[in-house]
């Protein structure tokens, strides 16, 4: 154990835990203190991460190690992949916090909300900086725990039904991971994440065991990543408040699953091993099926958030798809989507939240003409939707570009068909929304309805929306700039494989 400079990843995790605890301790009153705490924690965390980022650029490495059980360590470290995810979450946490403060103004149970919110981010940070599967699993499960209160936050029967479903899926998923983990532990001991996989030496003679382990872990992570047969919790979880959905979809839960799949393929098995066992293909097929299926279902939703949810189901699988395709280009595509999907989807959810809060709009039919009532939000929404479709120069395009090219380079051109089909479907379910926003006349009733967000609340809600939308745009537009997510990912993949 080393609690010095090296343990920075630990402190990054702990900041959120401490924030959460303080918020819980503070109770429901004392709004200003809570807000200060929230923002202070988020900013401090972001600062620390930036510090780590700089240090890593200059060749430093971070690792915190603590023995939990004989032969099993809790390892928190910071590699490039960690930093990618951690930076994204820290940044989006800050923004989402601002948004949530505005969103939940005057609503009950804010202490609980923000406490678990912080805890959720702590878990996400842990997931990001986990240095082995065991540690990963710990935070992965913690994430389940921290999210559930957020999902059921509204306290309505639907919320609880959704919470139940969420738990049923994620806990079963956790169990699958656990079994896989135990098996792996029996085979390989407490193996740390190693670039290119740590299992290659074991492959001979253990093929079937490794296959089974992979499938177990894949399904386990797939639950949170909403892979095809395991996705139904996600749309139902939409009963949660908008910031939660945003966080759930863009940063925390779904991403943690996807991140797990990335770790699984990249750092546990290594792509070469996964491919030689035929596992990468399995994952790729599954991801591809999810991409299509999610999109098709999204088409059929009439509730805005549910449509976005199914869109998430589809989009997140790009990450898995990219990683499972293998090869430099596709991997870049998959990993960079981690960031891009996050930025884009959080934009959309913020917008959905703005519509809901501002005018009580929940269903797609009610979007008609809202471009006039809420132009800024609508522009952001449009940007987000285009980003999802993959229209250049938005971030989504960059992803698809690398994925598509990577698919060909990796000799799996069928994936192009998947991407194209998904793009078309994306367009099919997003463009009608954009159309409604801008080209449909504003109904009388809506024109007369008072806008419920104004003043400071307006700034707190629209401000973050604009920021994330701009980020989604800039991440694509300036993809070639050093420091962009793409740049980072290319260095990561290029430098490491």
């Amino acid at each position, binding site marked *: 154990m080393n609690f010095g400079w090296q343990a920075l990843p630990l402190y990054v995790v702990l900041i959120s835990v401490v924030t959460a605890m303080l918020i*819980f301790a503070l109770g429901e009153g004392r709004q200003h203190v809570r807000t200060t705490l929230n923002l202070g924690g988020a900013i401090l965390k972001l600062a620390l991460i930036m510090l780590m980022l700089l240090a890593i650029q200059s060749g430093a490495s971070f690792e915190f190690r603590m023995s939990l059980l004989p032969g099993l360590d809790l390892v928190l470290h910071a590699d490039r992949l960690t930093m990618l995810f951690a930076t994204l979450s820290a940044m989006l946490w800050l923004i989402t916090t601002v948004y949530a403060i505005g969103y939940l103004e005057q609503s009950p*149970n804010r202490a609980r909300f923000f406490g678990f919110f912080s805890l959720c981010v702590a878990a996400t940070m842990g997931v990001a900086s986990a240095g082995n599967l065991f540690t990963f699993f710990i935070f992965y499960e913690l994430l389940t725990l921290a999210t559930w209160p957020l999902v*059921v936050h509204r306290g309505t029967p639907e919320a609880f039904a959704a919470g139940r479903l969420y738990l049923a899926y994620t806990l079963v998923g956790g*169990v699958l991971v656990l079994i896989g983990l*135990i098996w792996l*532990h029996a085979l390989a001991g407490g193996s740390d994440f190693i670039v290119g996989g740590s299992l290659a030496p074991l492959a001979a003679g253990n093929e079937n065991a490794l296959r089974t382990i992979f499938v177990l872990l894949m399904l386990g992570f797939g639950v949170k990543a909403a892979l095809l047969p395991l996705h139904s919790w996600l749309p139902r979880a939409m009963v949660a408040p908008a910031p939660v959905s945003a966080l759930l979809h863009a940063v925390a839960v779904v991403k943690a699953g996807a991140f797990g799949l990335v770790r699984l393929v990249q750092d546990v098995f290594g792509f070469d091993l996964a491919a030689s066992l035929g596992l990468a293909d399995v994952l790729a097929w599954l991801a591809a099926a999810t991409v299509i299926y999610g999109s098709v279902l999204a088409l059929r939703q009439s509730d805005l958030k549910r449509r976005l949810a199914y869109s998430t189901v589809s989009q997140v699988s790009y990450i898995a798809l990219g990683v499972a395709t293998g090869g430099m280009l596709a991997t870049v595509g998959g990993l960079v989507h981690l960031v891009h999907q996050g930025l884009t989807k959080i934009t959309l959810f913020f917008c959905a939240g703005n519509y809901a809060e501002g005018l009580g709009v929940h269903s797609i039919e009610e979007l008609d003409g809202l471009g006039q009532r809420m132009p800024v939000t609508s522009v952001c929404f449009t940007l987000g939707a285009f980003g999802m479709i993959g229209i250049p120069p938005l971030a989504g395009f960059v992803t698809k570009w690398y994925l598509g090219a990577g698919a060909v380079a990796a000799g799996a051109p069928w994936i192009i068909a998947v991407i194209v089909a998904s793009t078309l479907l994306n367009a099919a379910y997003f463009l009608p929304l954009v159309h409604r926003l801008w080209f449909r006349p504003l109904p009388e009733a809506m024109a007369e309805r008072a806008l419920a967000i104004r003043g400071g609340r307006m700034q707190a809600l629209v401000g973050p929306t604009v920021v994330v939308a701009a980020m989604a745009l800039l991440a694509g537009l300036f993809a070639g700039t050093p420091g962009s997510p793409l740049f980072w990912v290319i260095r990561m993949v290029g430098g490491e494989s």
Partner: protein
Amino acid sequence: MPSELLIGLIFLPLLGACLTVLPWRWSTRLGVFAGLVSLPVLLVALTLAVIREGAWYYSLGGWTAPLGIRLFVDPLALLMLWMVAIIGGVAAAHAWHDFRPGTPEGARFWPLWLLLTAAMNALFLSADLFNLYVCLELVTLAAIPLIAMAGTATSIRAAMRYLLLALLASLVYLLGVALLYNATGTLDLYLMTQTLAASDGPATSLAFALIAVGLLLKGAVFPLHVWLPNAHASAPGPVSAVLSALVVKTAVYLVYRLWLWTLPAEDPMQGAVELFAVLGAAALIYGGILALLQERLKLVIAYSTVAQLGYLLLVLPLASVTAWQAASYQLLSHGLAKAAMFLAAANILHAVGSDRLADLERLDQRTPLSLFALALGGVSIMGLPPSGGFLAKWLLLEAAWQEGRWLLLFVLVLGSLLAAGYVFRILAAALRRADPTEAEDAEGTSPIGRRQAGYALLLALLALLAGFGAAPILEVIDAGAPAGWSAP
């Protein structure tokens, strides 16, 4: 010096109990302090001694076995003693409010509580079968009045049922002891092994079978658990905590002692561990499902105990060092978590006036700290990280895996899912809002409520911390693994 520590562990609570019988307030306070607060201090010294010297015997009165009665301390006993000290101590602190010295309730409560503490300490240290019978009876007779202190019809009925079955159990156990004494000529748990290895025949196996059934009854192992749920659920909070966390463990502890220490490894009676495992598995599933069906908070927790005891029996056939670690850690983390949950449930019951799940809405507003403790305890019970329960489950799974027990693995997993089901059912009930738009009401928690919640929280946090401090604990525990389990 170390042996005096053992004496202190038993006799300080015992004499404390005597003091509390006296009518003065100071005597009660003194008795409680002498009997409870001293325990952790003694245990620190004892732990150091055990680490330094390993396990040892102490012959009472200087009469060596088989003539006299010996005390035996080893890491397992040490673990149990620590649990008594910590869980019992925190529960006592919690009870201090409801059973103040000087009140009639206090006067009735504390002597029994201290006797119970002394009895458990004595039981965990005893190396003599008949002495263990006396200890078991003392535990029972001290615990059941504590249940009845709740005074409700349910609690009295539950106490009665518990008493009848506990007496049956004791007698069945005693019959086994009688047969064993005759077959081996000694009552000492550890001396008996050699004689047992030489003798065989239906008598010793019947004796062990009788003892097993007696202990299974006392340990509330499915299907003999029937007395437990109502008894644990209807007792006063601190009593529930101690009953679930410690008292039922006494029987499990004895099963461990007898099967892992006393019975020779090649004795055919070792086959009974498979039966235990089957029962454990059934308990895990059945208890889990029944917990899901309950409508009252404390009943859910009580059925959870039925289920969780299953884990402790499941381990028996695995016979590996991992399994040993798993069992020890399950003992510890379940104890902490379950006690936390019962204390929290008591606070909730006190604040809400009912523990029906339907009445528990908005607990996060009304009793936030207690709910938090309940949830943290629940996390450990579910075996979700980071918690002691998680590590225990991990070790269990690993042990099952090492032995290639797939069915067991499946049961373990199913059990933890069921646990998640009932824990989250509680939490869902607690977070529910009858009217989601209703404005928050800032019901301040009273200082007393906060303190009471603090005790539950303390235990819950300990259960959580157990998820991080396993390495040193297991290091001590490993040294105490039974023969045959320590081989890598």
